[in-house]
C-alpha cells in the first residue's frame, strides 16, 4: 500500500538499527519516553523493540486519550446517558472504559442508549435524525481531536440544532509532560514527541523541555520507521551534547502548528482551572471546557452533573504506568485482576494503552520466542 509500506520497510529498519547501536555509548543505559499512545501501539504492533539494543528502554507516556479519563468522569457520563430521552454517542475506545459502577457497555445492557460513532460529526448526524432525542457526544482526546469537536459545535450552532451537546473531556498534552518532568522518580534521556498533537499545536510549545529541563525531544510520525528514526535523532543529539526540539514528522507537522484548528478550539473552548487525570491527580490548566457563548451545546450546563469522584483502587498503579515509572508488567494487578476482559485501569482498555499494548502484543519471553521464530 503506497505511503504506508515505505515506512515499514524491514531493510531500512535493519540499517537504522545498526546506526542506533553504533551511537549507544558502551555501558550507558538510555530511557526515552514515547508520550503518545499511538506510538506505544505502533511499537508493540510491529515488534519494534526487536530492533533496539537492550540498553535502550522505551518508557510509555500518558498520551492515550481514554487512559487519562478518571473513573468519576465515566460515572458522570453514564449519569447523563441514563437521563430519559438522551442518546449518548462515543468513540468505540471509550465503550469499555470502567467507571466506579461499570462501563458504557454495562450501562447499555441496562437500557441506556449509547451509540458508537467514528467522529463527532456522526454524532451530529444522529441528532439530526432523532429530533425527539437529545444527543450528547462524549468528547475525549488531546489537541488532536479537540478541533473536530469544536468544528462540530460550530456546525451545530450554524445549523441551529437544538438537541445536541458535548460532554467535554478534552485534555492538553503540555501540562502532562510537565508533570512527568517534575516527577522525582523518573529519569529520562529524551522524548519521542506526539505527532498527531503536534500537527495542531506545532513544535514551539515543547521548547521549554529543551530549554528548562535540558532534554531533547523529537516529534515523530506513527509508522515504525518514523519511530526508529526519531530514536536515532535523539541519540545523535545526546552524542553531540545537544538538547533540542526536532521534527522528524515534517511531512505532516508544520513547526507553527495548524492555526485554523487552534482558532476553532479557541472559539468554542477555554482552559479549565484544573482537571482530574486518571492516576495523575488534578493538574491545573490541563483540560478544556465549552465557553459560555456555546452553553447551549455544553452537556455540563444542560444536565446536572454529579461531579463524581472515584478513588483509584489502591492496588491499581495506573498513575505510575502513565508516568512511565513502572513498566506495565510491574503493576501489582497486571494480567491477573486487571486484564483486557476485565480492565481495572484505563491503560488496559484502549489499544493505545501501555498495559493493553503489552498484554495483547508483547506478552512473551523474548528468548523463547527467538527460538520459535528462528
Amino acid at each position, binding site marked *: 500500500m503506497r505511503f504506508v509500506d515505505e515506512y515499514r520497510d524491514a531493510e531500512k529498519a535493519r540499517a537504522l538499527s545498526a546506526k542506533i547501536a553504533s551511537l549507544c555509548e558502551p555501558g550507558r543505559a538510555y530511557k526515552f519516553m514515547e508520550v503518545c499512545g499511538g506510538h506505544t501501539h505502533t511499537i508493540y504492533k510491529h515488534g519494534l523493540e526487536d530492533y533496539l539494543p537492550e540498553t535502550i528502554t522505551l518508557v510509555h507516556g500518558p498520551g492515550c486519550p481514554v487512559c487519562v479519563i478518571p473513573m468519576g468522569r465515566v460515572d458522570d457520563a453514564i449519569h447523563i446517558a441514563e437521563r430519559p430521552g438522551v442518546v449518548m454517542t462515543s468513540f468505540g475506545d471509550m465503550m469499555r472504559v470502567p467507571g466506579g459502577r461499570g462501563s458504557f457497555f454495562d450501562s447499555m445492557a441496562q437500557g441506556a442508549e449509547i451509540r458508537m460513532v467514528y467522529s463527532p460529526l456522526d454524532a451530529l448526524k444522529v441528532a439530526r435524525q432523532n429530533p425527539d432525542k437529545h444527543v450528547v457526544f462524549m468528547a475525549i482526546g488531546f489537541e488532536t481531536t479537540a478541533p473536530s469537536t469544536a468544528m462540530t459545535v460550530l456546525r451545530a450552532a450554524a445549523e441551529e440544532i437544538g438537541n445536541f451537546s458535548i460532554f467535554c473531556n478534552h485534555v*492538553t498534552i503540555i501540562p502532562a509532560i510537565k508533570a512527568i518532568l517534575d516527577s522525582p522518580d523518573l529519569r529520562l534521556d529524551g522524548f519521542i514527541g506526539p505527532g498527531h498533537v503536534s500537527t495542531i*499545536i506545532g513544535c*514551539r510549545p515543547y521548547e521549554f523541555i529543551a530549554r528548562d529541563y535540558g532534554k531533547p525531544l523529537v516529534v515523530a510520525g506513527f509508522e515504525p520507521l518514523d519511530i526508529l528514526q526519531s530514536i536515532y535523532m535523539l541519540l545523535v543529539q545526546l552524542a553531540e551534547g545537544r538538547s533540542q526540539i526536532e521534527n522528524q514528522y515534517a511531512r505532516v507537522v508544520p513547526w507553527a502548528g495548524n492555526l485554523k484548528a487552534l482558532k476553532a478550539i479557541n472559539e468554542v473552548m477555554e482552559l479549565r482551572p*484544573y482537571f482530574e487525570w486518571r492516576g495523575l491527580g488534578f493538574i491545573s*490548566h490541563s483540560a478544556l471546557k465549552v465557553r459560555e457563548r456555546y452553553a447551549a451545546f455544553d452537556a455540563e450546563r444542560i444536565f446536572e452533573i454529579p461531579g463524581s469522584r472515584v478513588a483509584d483502587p489502591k492496588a491499581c498503579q495506573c498513575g505510575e504506568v502513565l508516568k512511565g515509572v513502572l513498566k506495565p508488567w510491574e503493576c501489582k494487578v497486571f494480567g491477573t485482576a486487571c486484564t483486557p476482559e476485565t480492565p481495572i485501569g484505563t491503560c488496559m482498555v484502549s489499544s493505545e494503552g501501555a498495559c493493553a499494548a503489552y498484554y495483547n502484543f508483547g506478552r512473551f*519471553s523474548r528468548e523463547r520466542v527467538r527460538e520459535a521464530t528462528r
Partner: protein
Amino acid sequence: MTDVKSTDIKRTGIAADIEGTDTQDTGTAGTGTAGMGTERTAGWAEAAIREHAADTRAPSREEQVLERIDRARRRKARVKEEHITMAHGSGGKATQTLVEAVFLEAFRNPLLEPLEDGAVLGVGSARLAFTTDSYVVSPLFFPGGDIGDLAVNGTVNDLSVCGARPLYLSAGFVLEEGFPVADLRRITTSMAEAAAAADVQIVTGDTKVVQRGKADGCYVNTSGVGLLDRPISLSVAGARPGDAVIVSGPIGEHGVTIMLARGELDIEADLTSDTAPLSGLTTALLDACPDGVRCLRDATRGGVATILNEVARASDVAVVIEEDAIPVRPGVRGACELLGIDPLYVACEGRMIAVVDGPAADAALAALRADPLGEGAALIGHVKDDPPGLVLLKTSFGGTRIVDVLVGDPLPRIC
C-alpha cells in the same frame, strides 16, 4: 488553586501555557474545592483485586509475570457481568467465557465438550456431523450476498470443516411484524440457490413472527447434518509441531464489506463478501491429503487470529505466522488501516484455515489452488512446540509480537 482564573487560549497558545502548571495528589488536592468533592470507591474493582489477592504482589522479573498471567488464563472461565453485553456475541474472549461458563456448564457431555464447529455422532455404523448457527447480520442484503446464502453457506461450512459431506439443512425464521414479503422471497430464493450450489436440501423449517420492534426484520437459524464417510478425525486439538498452517484465500472480505455496507463510515471500496460453500474445497483437500490434514476451521467471527488461538490453546502448541505471507486484498487492508482494525480479526464467510502435516503442505496447497475458491490459498506459518498456547506473528517490519484473542469484536452483527 482556588484563585486560578480560566486562561485565554488565544493569548497563551493552547496547551503551551505551562506557567503555573502543577500536579497535586488526588488525595489532598480536592478537599473543599468545588468539583473536587469526596471520593467514592469502585466496589467492583476492589472485589476483583481481592479475588486475585494471592497474585497481587509486585513481581521481580518479567518471566514471573508471564507465568502468573498464564496461570490466570488457564483458570476456569467465569462470567462476571450481570447482564449480557455486545462483547458476549463477538466471538472473542467474552463469547468463549459465556459458552464455557454458562452453556457448557449446563449441557456438559462428551460430544459437546470439544467445542468444535459441529458434533460428530455415531448412528449405527455411520458417523454424522451435526451443527447449528443463527444469523442476525445487518444489513440483510450486502454486496456479494445476503442473510439467506450466508445462513446456508455458514452451516454447510461448519459441516465441511468437520470433514463431513453436508446433506440436509433446517431453516428457522424469526420475522418482525411489518417485514416486506418481497424481501423474504429474496432471502428464500438466495437460500435455495445456495443450497443447490452446495448440493444440500432444506428439509424442515419453522416460522415465528414477533411484534414490531422486538426483532430487526429477519433472523435466520439453520442446522445441518452431514455424513462423515472418511476414516478421519479432524480436531482443533490435533496440531503438532512441524505442521503447516494454510489459509484458503484472502482474508477479511466479509467483515469489511458488511461494515462498509452499513454506510456509516463514508468509506468506499470495491469489495464483496466472500460468502461461499467450502464443501468442494474440503473434499479436494481431503482427497489430496487423506492422512495429512489435522484440523480445518472456517474463519468466521473473530477471524483467522481467533481460530489460530483456538488451535494453539487446544493443541498446547505455538503457532508462528508471517505477516507478509497472509493474503489480504488491498481494499480490505486499506479499510482496516483507516479504521484501526487488524484484518486478522475480521470475519470471513468462505475461507478456512487448514493445519496439515508439514510434508503434505505442498500437496494441500496445490489441491486448494486447483479450485477457483482456493486459488488465493497461501502457506502462512508453522506449528512449533514452544511457547505453548501462543500465536506469534513475524511482522512485515521484521519484529515479533503475539496475536491474542480479542475481548470484543469491533464489528457487531456481521453474521
